[in-house]
């Protein structure tokens, strides 16, 4: 199980990527800061960075409104 933003549980499977998690969460905003167990992951790695089981994933949407 992966914990997203300390609130949502996402089922883990081998090879699950950041992109997969964003899709499951329906996180469509294009500009985010992602950390996996405290390590920042840049957006060019979203398709390749695989998330370990039990990971603490923080997805910070850098959106601050009108």
């Amino acid at each position, binding site marked *: 199980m992966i914990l997203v*933003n300390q*609130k949502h549980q996402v089922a883990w499977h081998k090879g699950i990527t950041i992109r997969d998690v964003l899709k499951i969460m*329906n*996180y469509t905003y294009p500009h985010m800061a992602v950390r996996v167990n405290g390590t920042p992951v840049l957006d060019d790695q979203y398709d390749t960075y695989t998330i370990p089981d039990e990971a603490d994933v923080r997805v910070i949407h*850098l959106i601050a409104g*009108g």
Partner: protein
Amino acid sequence: MNEAKAKLHVLSEFTYTPSTVERGYTGQTLYVNVGDGTIKGKPVTEDMKEKFIGGRGFDLWLLWQGINDSTKWNDPENEIVIASGPCGGTTQYPGSGKSIAVSISPLTHVPIDSNAGGHYGPYLKFSGWDAIEVQGKAEKDVFVYVDGPAGIVQIIEAPEDSPTDTHMLGHWLNDHFAASEKDKQQMSFVTAGIGSDHSYIGCLNFSLYDRKRHDLRYKQAGRGGIGTVFRDKKIKALIVKSFPVKGDSNHPADMERIAATGADMQHEVATFDPVQNRMRSRGTSYLVQIMNDYDLLPVHNYKFGAHPDTPKINGDIWEAQYTQNMPDGCWYGCTVACAHAVDAYEVRTGPYKGQRVIVDGPEYETIAGCGSNCGIFEPWALLEINFYCDTYGIDTISFGTGMAFVMECYEAGILDKEKTGGLDLHFGKAEETLEVMHQLARGEGFGKIFGMGIRQMKQYFVEHFDADPQFVQDIGMEAKGLEYSEYLTKESLAQQGGYGLTNKGPQHDEAWLIFMDQVNNQLPTFEDKAEALHYFPMWRTWFGLCGFCKLPWNDVVDPKNSLSAEPAKIPHHVQNYVEIYSGVTGKEVTTDDLIDMSERVYNLQRVMNIRLGYGLRDHDAIPYRSAGPVTEEEYLSRQERYDDQIREWFDKDPETMTTQEKMALHREYREGRYEKLIDAVYKRRGWSPNGVPTVEKLQQLGIDYPDVVAIVKKYL
């Protein structure tokens, strides 16, 4: 000299030698009394610059001195004060040309501040004035004309045949005040429209002359009914003719520092905007689909957060409608250039039917407020509403939120065709919505009732239509008398505070914390939320002190920002503002200093609210729709979420409860936590439990002036 201008009747005139701008300031503000004809300059003291910086700070300080404890919005001593700020008029850094207008609002009865693009504020400064303060009430319609190169200020009688509606008046003013194309480029107008004559939700339009289109464009200071005050004073237009703008018109202390910081930022915009929000092609309309995806788009008077028809009015639709490849910055040098327009729109209704016009926008707030919130998903209708709101001088946010409230009242049976004069005002009724707009502009029928704003409509519906007072209070989305802007806050306690714990009323430019709180879960405790409700309102206030637009701060950002300790603050952009401010004024400051500057102004505004009989804890209350589900329909639409919360928050089994019982439990809890939030925020801001800035706080900020302290002492 334009011959048409020479024929106009000058009521009062003042001549002056424009001061050169030094380090962002001219050192003088302009006072104009349209009632008795007084025109004079006032010095800007070092203390004023030190304490209140400029822009909204100057506006509030001048207003503070101009009014008394019982001034009402329509008293002659109420003022409209407009300023840009020391950095306003910078052309090297994007978004550096905003103006801020302040006045006592007819909706809230306390000062409202509202910012706009367009050229008026910077042009006023480059004509020799850091701010303009307009007081009094004229007997007949007037123009206030400031001509920097000629060194004159005039109050001029507006001929009876001069138009009032903005898009007509703008052309008339160009015909009468500009002698050449160059003149047009150096002029800017502030206008309202006949909607401002007949409602409390009037807005101001700030013009800019679009050199590519050879036509006028308008940006709106929409919030709080300043257009209504403007027309109550019988002002038809404020007109400024400026010296030509140059890259160093502010005579900054360190031009190289500004240029270097600006170049970095322009590079960031050029590199990342195309792959992020695409402001340059879609403007803020990109937010429509995002808000819908996250269940935050107001739909049907904030009942719901998403709608299947949203793709009909999302950013892709507007990108196709906006005229592309035009320079759409609302001030020179703004490469974010999000101020888009639709050219040659053919008007379908009302007095301008058949005219082809430029529609400035629509921007996110207009699309969400007049679109999804009213169940209107037809782009033509949103263009038409946008155009008429602008030319009539009506705030699109108050209009949209007000109409959403009316539509829910209609569907709830409080209103019917008999009460609306034959109009079917179910959600989604576009033509009828436009008819309400035209009635409002004429001051007739149901439109006249509508123009009072939600707070007064609530009372009217109770008194005349037997509405349930609790129900209309719960669903009428206003606080302090101002209509909410367009975000759904039910699941973000911090944003409930972001709207409720404001000085002016629920406008998101003070704090917009929905994603930080609800989606990112970065503010889990009351203390975290209180810290955010301290920092962000202060930070966002700072833009308005200096003449900046907020959008370049966080709508395009180098992805490396995500590696910073506090990405939500966008620290490298905050540092850019330190560089620009110091580069213009020559004063070395830190990022903390910027927050201190805002805190002084923010607290002065709070005390001003108290001085006028508001500004206490009771006045920070919010309608329940903002905090939780009011109706069963609303509860059932998100039943899974609410039921889960009952399990999580109360350890109860929702299966054993009726919907009404579950709603009551939610309400008690949600209302209680809002009160706890208020306690935490007041404490963080240095205010008493009743929301009053303490004497110590005023001392710490250096605004413990005797008259300011005397006001708070009455409540401590």
